[in-house]
């Protein structure tokens, strides 16, 4: 919850099957504890909630809550049936967080991990921002799906699946970005009329586009970065927690998580290095990833493996000798989940109230800088790694003309051109660079080695933040005093045209006059200049990459 904002009321409904036989009072006490420790929460034990899922939404509506956490056993209540009941009760079904817990997990002997999981579910539910019509795809429930037997007497019931939507106001468009389109494994995102559009029928709601978007323009109800951030923040408040990210299709997870604190994601491919590093940096003793079941055929396996390797390499460079154990895949065996390793935390808990940022590349940068704080002089640099969410741009000042083409192409604003009264500055912020390499082909001085980019991670560069790469004086118009171009650019043009016959008058015009004055001079007062200029090659060919110099 942010300071100054009223918390959204959340109802927590727990099935009575979660209490050990004879220990029903313990579950009631747990509800009281949740109400005491979490703001504006109404918690209740609901008899037979696993059988009658509709009682959960009814409890939420009765208590004036718009968000609901359902604590049921692994086989309690089908999500589709819960969704239908929620709609009938007037509650947004995607505002419900379902927590699967083992039966009889609450007893006098304790309730290991139950309270942090419920508290994190409350935080996640509270961060839910609502659903828009574009974010829903109706689906007829397949025959034999686990729904009420009454429903099968008539039209197959309709349920809804969340799909992402693109906020076009925030979207940079395919011309500058297009990461979501490239990331989608089902080609559900495409470009139409210069806009990114979604084919709902192709989308399976994996959410990869959500974490791929550098401007958070893509959102998926129930799977937003804000929701995961809130859940993670709550889980990391536990003592040296072991956090497990698991795919929604992971099989064998029956509510018992063997010491891990789980975060369910639509696809394990949404978990970026920044998520893992943020968890480690904020005190998690271990971070596990559990993939989907064998029937899924997930195309993201190599990507996940690469991200794990990258995260471990960085942790090792930062001095974590247990990195390989700390960040790992966790298999589900017949005996259940592999237990988390017993390791001391490498990072430290966050004293502030802020939820971790999970948007890349800021998430990785922020977590690395946090881990680096203990030894900031240590040089930590990881050479180009294909799984790095961060890139590193290097500019050779002697070759750069500060034309700004790279800044215009940069989708995240890592490269920026700022024009002052007297000069123009090209600056770079490594914490915002995603290594997309859009800048490199846009650079007209690429042949001279003016700009290079790769997927290296350099903590010194990250720590510097925004840094000027080159400052260049602006040449001014002799006629009106307006800006012409950076001096280095004019020098470069002069060098390029030096050997051209009759280049003199043209270069004089270029160096002396701004674009508007050049046009008026050429057309009105300077027949000799016009004559000289007309003998030159056409401007468009000469200067195609710097159209701004020409009328």
């Amino acid at each position: 919850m942010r300071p100054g904002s009223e918390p959204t009321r959340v109802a927590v409904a727990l099935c009575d099957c979660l209490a050990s036989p004879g220990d029903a009072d313990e579950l009631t006490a747990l509800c009281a504890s949740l109400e005491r420790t979490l703001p504006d929460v109404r918690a209740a034990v609901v008899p037979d909630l696993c059988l009658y899922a509709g009682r959960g939404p009814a409890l939420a509506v009765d208590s004036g809550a718009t968000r609901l956490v359902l604590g049921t056993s692994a086989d309690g209540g089908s999500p589709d049936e819960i969704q239908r009941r929620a709609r009938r009760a007037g509650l947004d079904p995607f505002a419900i967080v379902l927590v699967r817990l083992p039966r009889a997990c609450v007893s006098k002997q304790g309730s290991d991990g139950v309270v942090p999981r419920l508290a994190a579910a409350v935080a996640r539910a509270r961060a839910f921002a609502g659903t828009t019509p574009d974010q829903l795809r109706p689906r007829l429930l397949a025959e034999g799906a686990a729904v009420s037997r009454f429903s099968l007497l008539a039209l197959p019931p309709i349920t809804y699946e969340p799909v992402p939507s693109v906020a076009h106001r925030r979207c940079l468009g395919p011309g500058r970005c297009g990461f979501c389109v490239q990331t989608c494994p089902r080609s559900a995102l495409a470009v139409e009329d210069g806009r990114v559009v979604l084919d709902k029928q192709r989308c399976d709601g994996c959410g990869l586009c959500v974490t791929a978007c550098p401007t958070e323009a893509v959102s998926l109800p129930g799977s937003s970065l804000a929701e995961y951030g809130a859940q993670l923040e709550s889980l990391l408040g536990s003592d040296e927690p072991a956090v497990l990210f698991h795919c929604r299709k992971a099989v064998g997870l029956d509510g018992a998580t063997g010491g891990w604190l789980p975060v369910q994601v639509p696809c394990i491919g949404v978990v970026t290095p920044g998520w893992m590093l943020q968890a480690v940096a904020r005190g998690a003793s271990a971070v596990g990833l559990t993939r989907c079941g064998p029937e899924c055929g997930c195309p993201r396996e190599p990507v996940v493996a690469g991200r794990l390797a990258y995260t471990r390499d960085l942790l090792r460079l930062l001095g974590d000798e247990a990195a390989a154990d700390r960040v790992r895949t966790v298999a589900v065996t017949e005996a259940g989940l592999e237990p988390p390793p017993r390791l001391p935390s490498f990072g430290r808990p966050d004293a502030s109230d802020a939820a971790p940022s999970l948007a890349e590349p800021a998430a990785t940068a922020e977590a690395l800088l946090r881990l680096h704080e203990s030894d900031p002089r240590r040089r930590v640099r990881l050479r180009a790694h294909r799984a790095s969410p961060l890139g590193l741009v290097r500019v050779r000042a002697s070759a750069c003309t500060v034309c700004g083409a790279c800044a215009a192409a940069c989708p995240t604003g890592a490269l920026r051109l700022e024009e002052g009264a007297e000069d123009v500055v090209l600056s770079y912020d490594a914490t915002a660079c995603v290594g997309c390499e859009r800048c490199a082909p846009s650079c007209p001085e690429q042949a001279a080695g003016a700009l290079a980019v790769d997927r290296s991670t350099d903590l010194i560069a990250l720590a510097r933040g925004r840094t000027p790469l080159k400052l260049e004086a602006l040449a001014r118009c002799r006629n009106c005093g307006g800006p012409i171009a950076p001096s280095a650019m004019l020098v470069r043009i002069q060098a390029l045209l030096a050997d051209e016959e009759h280049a003199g008058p043209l270069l004089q015009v270029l160096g002396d006059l701004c674009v508007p004055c050049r046009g008026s001079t050429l057309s009105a007062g300077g027949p000799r200049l016009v004559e000289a200029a007309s003998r030159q090659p056409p401007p468009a060919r000469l200067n195609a990459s710097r159209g701004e110099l020409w009328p």
Partner: protein
Amino acid sequence: MTTAPATSAPAPRSGQGSSPADLAELRGAAFELLGALFCYPAPGDLAEVVAAARDFPSRRCLAPEFAFFPPLRALCDRLLNLEESDLGGLEREYVTLLLVNSSQGLCPPYESAYLEREGRERGLVTIAVERTYAASGVALADGRELPDHASLELGFLSLLCDEEERAWREGDVDRSLDFLRREEEFHELHLQRWFPTFTRRLARAAPPGSLYGLLAEAARAFVVHDGDLVRMLLAEPPP
């Protein structure tokens, strides 16, 4: 903290009485209601619309299971609270939001304003819409509105839904699917291409809590949902 009563009965039967015909009837009624609300709020028409709103949520037990229902219910609630004295305000709101300089205004309720080059009226888009109506045997009764007006496009889909419902009830599956295909085509070629943008603009432009703000939200939710629903029904035809 409370313990919920153990005696609460199982949830009521869901999907009771629902069939493809019921679904078509529900959709037809919703299109009719929304289409009527995009017409100029004349006193006589408004009374009919209010009566339809009174009937809508209570009679159709199927509706609450659909995602479009909450904004539609909010709209119906607002309509039921309308009084005679509100009519003047509604007329003013309608004129300000939907009529003033309709082709260049805030939210013109015509498809051509969004899809035609320079928002030209009576252009190719208007002709294409009229031809689509004619292909289904529908002709405009009077010339009060252009064929691509929101109320007429929604009304046309209402007619198609009514025909679809009749075909389902007669057990003529092929004819029902034929009408479903016509609905899908009209959604894809016309309504989905402009209506969400129009209603988004209208929702932003309308004063908070106004009838037209609620209408914009409800119409957008319903039309977007219906486009997806029709596509789904054609992909997995009902038994």
